[in-house]
């Protein structure tokens, strides 16, 4: 394939020929990863007490954001599809219909909520799903 041909849209940001998205490489998740590595390789070891704890939290937060940047759009898409299947357009509509009792007796609600919770934890804290 000639390099002058436009890349398919899903390749944006993945290509190293220079034909990338607006900001290009490194991507946001790659920059976050670099900061996280700085914290875990250089910073946390020279801290103690409360600051040590806060840096550990910060490292976990950055790892979470990396997962979100990489896999979030795909899981968000699946989430939207589940809401649509249940006949609601948003989390806030689903929440208010559960609150009002409009969802009482609907057997599809629990599986939807569980699928959402699993996907959310996949991004936020995958280890919580282990046991």
């Amino acid at each position, binding site marked *: 394939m000639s390099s002058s041909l436009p890349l398919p849209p899903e390749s944006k940001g993945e290509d190293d020929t220079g034909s990338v998205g607006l900001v290009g490489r490194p991507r946001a998740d790659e920059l976050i990863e670099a900061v996280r590595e700085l914290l875990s390789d250089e910073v946390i070891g020279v801290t103690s007490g409360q600051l040590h704890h806060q840096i550990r939290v910060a490292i976990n937060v950055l790892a*979470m954001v990396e997962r979100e940047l990489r896999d979030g759009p795909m899981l968000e898409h699946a989430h939207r599809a589940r809401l649509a299947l249940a006949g609601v357009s948003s989390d806030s509509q689903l929440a208010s219909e559960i609150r009002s009792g409009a969802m009482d007796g609907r057997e599809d609600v*629990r599986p939807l909520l*569980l699928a959402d919770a699993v996907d959310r934890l996949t991004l936020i804290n995958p280890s919580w799903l282990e046991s």
Partner: protein
Amino acid sequence: MAPGQDLDGHPRPPRLSAEELGSAFGDVLTAAIGKTMVPAGLPRRLSSGASRESWVFEVAPGVEGPRRFVVQLFPERHIGTGLTAMSEAQLLAVASDGGVPVPRVVAAGGPGGPPGAAFLVTEWIDGETLPSRIFRDPTYRPGLAGLQRECASALARIHDLPVDATHLRPLDPIEPYRDDLAASGQSHPALEWAYRWLIQNRPQGNPPCIVHGDFRLGNLMVDGRGLRAVLDWELAHIGDPYEDVAWPMVRAWRFDRVRPAGVFPDRESWLSAYGEASGLDVDPDIVRWWEIAGTFKWGVICLTQWLRHRDGATRSVELAAIGRRVAENEYDLLGLIP
């Protein structure tokens, strides 16, 4: 904010320098003990995420008795159930009389005193509260076998304290958190779903008693011999004993990754240990409702912690990150609800 949380949202006590605090604590102890207590070095701030400032304070040799103390400074205002320094001092005295292992109160005072904030001074207790250290450091191993029985006994004694001897007030286990959820403006369908189940399946309560309100690993002082003291009484209220029985079993407080099998709170044996200590015929299905209520409550607290950061009351990456932990509780609720 929920009554259980409102302490955290309040302005911090006036910040004095360590030198000023040391001198103020010396005056407080001198007045309380009736002998001149000279500070030995500066007080040291304890790393605690709570609203209160906690300090370790030592006095110079030359006086008999304990020389190391914990001083807690209270926030300026109190709303809801957050205990004042004076009512917490009274509660600790009642608990001590009832055979509950607690820190001994040395002095307590209102906001007009020398430290510039309401304060509570207790004797220092040696030991460890961090679950990861308690379960991994061999120092504490000999105490682990009996920990469950000791916790059950301490909790049963708390629930047996005379209800009228304190100024504690009743607190509903779910409604304040439902209000917080509604006030947050955030949409959490799984929490709404759990709340709906909770109100539709609410069990008949036990006779009201004094509830500690935060009885769990992290608030229990442990050493190589076992349980030394029950700490952090600021969320105490009048309620159902099962609230305290179920709270340490909420997943966030079980510390499953570090806790050895069979050690408190071991799901299989904790209920029978408490039943034995209290004489109650513990119904696991009803305790399950309370575990679900506790998981709902903790989920909402995670949400309100992040709001503290968002609204600027306390900027902290930790509080921001806790906001994401709502998801853990949603997942657990979906597994717990029958």
